[in-house]
């Protein structure tokens, strides 16, 4: 559904990456690995439509419904956990009961009425995971989703990956961890 051909991106006349070609036909989950500054986050921003001034071709074979999650969670400090999820621009219309059931799974239900300003970084990541769970997109672009997560939430996130894949969705995420062989790897170092 997603195909790139000779995709390149330069900043201040220096190429962050160049001639990157891949397509998401056979595999469902793609893991972007590479050193700091190799262009993992930049590629995700290009695929999500945030960065437009790339070189090369980028095409989608079907209507894309993108869910993008960057380093910054887009949380409003003076809204509660529940309100932040309810008003998230990436989500369709959802009810409070749907939000509550997701928050229970993430052990955040006791914090649902607390303003997000008072949460730890890990808990803020969990709010993003809650949005990921509730999303009905068909392409997920996640920038280092496993950062700042405890073991239990990491396992839960992997389970959610499986659920999303079963619905036919594609996931592209970045990570510094090269160990996991379950996913198709895209090594950004090869395109620098």
């Amino acid at each position, binding site marked *: 559904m997603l195909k790139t051909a000779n995709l390149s991106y330069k900043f201040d006349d220096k190429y962050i990456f160049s001639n990157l070609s891949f397509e998401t036909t056979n595999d469902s989950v793609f893991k972007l690995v590479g050193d700091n500054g190799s262009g993992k986050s930049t590629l995700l921003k290009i695929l999500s439509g945030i960065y*437009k001034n790339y070189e090369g071709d980028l095409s989608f074979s079907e209507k894309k419904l993108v869910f993008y999650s960057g380093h910054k969670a887009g949380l409003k400090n003076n*809204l509660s956990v529940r309100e932040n999820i309810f*008003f998230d*621009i990436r989500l369709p219309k959802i009810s409070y009961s749907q939000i509550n059931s997701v928050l229970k799974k993430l052990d955040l239900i006791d914090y649902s009425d607390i303003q997000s300003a008072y949460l730890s970084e890990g808990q803020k990541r969990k709010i993003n995971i809650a949005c990921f769970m509730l999303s009905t997109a068909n392409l997920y672009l996640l920038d280092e989703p496993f950062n700042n997560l405890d073991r239990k939430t990491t396992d839960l996130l992997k389970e959610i990956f499986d659920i999303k894949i079963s619905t036919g969705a594609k996931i592209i995420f970045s990570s510094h961890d090269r160990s996991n062989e379950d996913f198709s790897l895209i090594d950004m170092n090869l395109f620098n």
Partner: protein
Amino acid sequence: MIYFVKILKKEFLIYSRKSSSFISPVVFFLISISLYPIGISNDPDILKNLAPGLIWITVLLSTLISFQNIFAEDYEDGSIELLLASGQNLSLIVLIKIFVNWIFSCLPIIVLSMFSIFLLYLPIEGLKPLIISLLIGTPTICLFGALAGALSLGKNSITGPALMLPLSLPVLILGTQAINYSLNGINFSSNILLLTAILIFLLPIILFASVGALKLHFN
């Protein structure tokens, strides 16, 4: 449509919980209006003549406090990235943000400007053009503020006002003149029509420019 209703509700909720967004401009306005009789003169005739200009300048400066709020927080917390990735109509989203900012930062000032009858001895016949000119002129100032805010994201705090104030001068002149015309028994409707024309003409242009300015930060 659901997205735009969602954003409208979210913006109202955020502004209503962020008391500084509407209290700061109001307090600044009230303090300034109260200080003029002390600092300039307590002679009603002098204040009466200066009142239209003083009120409009104070309104303009009061709005400077709030317009940086329109995009700065969204830029810091990553919300703008999510909006860009959502593929939604950004112009409409920017319009909602400007509208809510106007409701919370300008509308209370417009209501409070009626106190200038007592503090600056503004004659009662000047009240109607004052309110009408502010109701039509302040949305244009908010538009300029949004554009300046979008252009100056991540830059020092003087860049925004430096961009916004010169652009707002025609609105300031027309607004002040409308009140002066009314006080001198001259029909002020031409000024109001000009203010309306400026608003209608600039609305799509500035929305388009603001969206462009926001995208500029990500390219």
